[in-house]
């Protein structure tokens, strides 16, 4: 399984290397994103707002973590979809499906490269923030952040597989992805604390994994919280993955069978 995942990673890396300018532009794009957040935070920061965050941090740090780590949700949702879309378009889906590698392994392995690239992008975001805009990284509990991140990716992967099941069946226009990203953006606390939402929405926010992911990540990176303090967020994310991964696998297996019955597996 690992050697196959590496084969996918090497494939995607070789293809990406053939587009050399894209990577350089991505580093530059990250700089513009971080700079925009910094000046926005200077504009909106007030004494009251600053007191809402852990000592030594501010709205810039809060928003940068939200912005950088919300991407893990969007990539989890798009990585599986994109692997199917691209493979359908260049005709490699059928060629892969007649090998002994099951589609679930193909999907999981296809996501390896996007996640590594995303990790690099996150590091670039945080590095720009720390180097130029006083993002506080000294207090961070990096081990705790990695644990929250892994638990988050597992929980988001379940949502990604549901989204891909829709794509397998209906080819394009993915309301599952739109709904998940939209609701998570509104309720998950990406750009503002969940506590500013009306109470019913705060309650709804507790039902989506990204809320726990961003909470845990901010605690680990900005407040340097220990593993005991991070446990409630990690526990919630493990619970989400425990439910979403088996459920999404069942939905995916059903969707795959439907497309094999209808003969639309390679249609796009």
């Amino acid at each position, binding site marked *: 399984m690992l*050697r196959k995942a590496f084969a996918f990673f090497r494939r995607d890396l070789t293809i990406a290397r053939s587009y050399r300018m894209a990577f350089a532009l991505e580093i530059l794009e990250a700089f513009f994103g971080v700079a925009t957040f910094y000046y926005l935070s200077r504009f909106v920061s007030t004494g009251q707002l600053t007191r809402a965050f852990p000592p030594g941090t501010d709205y810039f740090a809060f928003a940068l973590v939200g912005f950088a780590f919300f991407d893990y949700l969007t990539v989890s949702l798009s990585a599986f979809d994109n692997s199917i879309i691209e493979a359908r378009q260049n*005709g490699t889906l*059928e*060629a*892969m499906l007649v*090998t*002994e590698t099951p589609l679930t392994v193909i999907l999981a392995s296809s996501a390896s490269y996007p996640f590594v690239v995303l990790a690099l992008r996150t590091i670039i975001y945080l590095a720009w923030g720390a180097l130029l805009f006083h993002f506080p990284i000294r207090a961070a509990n990096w081990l705790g952040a990695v644990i929250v991140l892994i638990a988050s990716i597992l929980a988001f992967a379940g949502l990604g597989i549901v989204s891909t099941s829709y794509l397998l069946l209906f080819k394009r226009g993915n309301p599952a992805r739109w709904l998940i990203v939209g609701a998570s953006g509104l309720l998950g606390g990406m750009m503002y604390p969940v506590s500013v939402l009306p109470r019913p929405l705060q309650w709804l926010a507790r039902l989506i994994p990204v809320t726990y992911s961003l909470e845990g990540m901010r605690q680990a990176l900005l407040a340097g919280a220990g593993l005991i303090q991070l446990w409630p967020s990690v526990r919630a994310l493990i619970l989400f993955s425990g439910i979403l991964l088996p459920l999404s696998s069942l939905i995916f297996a059903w969707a795959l069978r439907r497309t094999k019955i209808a003969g639309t*597996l390679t249609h796009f």
Partner: protein
Amino acid sequence: MQASAIVIEDLGKYFPVAQRGWRALLNPFSPLTQPALSGVSFQVESGAVTALIGANGSGKSTLLRILATLLVPTRGRARVAGYDVEREAPQVRAQLGFHSATDGGFYGRLTAHENLDFFAAMNSLFGRQAAERIEEVTELMGLAAFLESQVRTLSTGQVHRLGLARAMLHRPSVLLLDEPTRSLDPMAASDFRRFLRTELVERRGTTVLFASHALAEVEQLADRVALLDSGRLVACDSPWGLRRATGAATLEQALERLTLRGQQAEVSL
């Protein structure tokens, strides 16, 4: 008598009728009413070459795709190398090589070598073993001249050869080929037929089921011919047996007579 590598019993495949507009919205999973295969039964012996022939839309590709586990049959069953295509699909895929009629299915920005390396890994071939197999198929299919070129720069015929090489990379015991020589030049097609007959079938004992419209190729390669017409199996015999049964001088004549006979039988029903 040799065991059968492919067993097809009463196989049927129906597709849903494509819906448009509000009908598609209200009924996304329409019933399977469009027949593609109906009551097809035959066997392919181990180490034999069987040709699937028939007009466009007769069900040849559908049958090959069911055997390749890309489609689920509506009824009946099929076994490849002793495994059920529906219930034991992973085991079936480990035994077969499949070459689709549509040229392509490669990563254009990777070289031919990098593509083969990737698909070798998909078939659990890594490191030295993968390198040896790639070298082997490179020699057999004459890929050396363009092995390090990006696939997007190759001609249709070269991509086709690469596709055939990929299908044989893991030395499958059963090879399913949909129009294997379609895009090849006459010399390459002739070389491939010779290689298929002598190397794959006679030396390695590979079982081959291929679809083709080229009757000369069918006559040269096939031990048996399965004729499909509108999704039904009209005849399955050796080329000589088909000619004898119809009193025809050529295979083409024999097929014309068999197809006509089938259509007349349908009308009289």
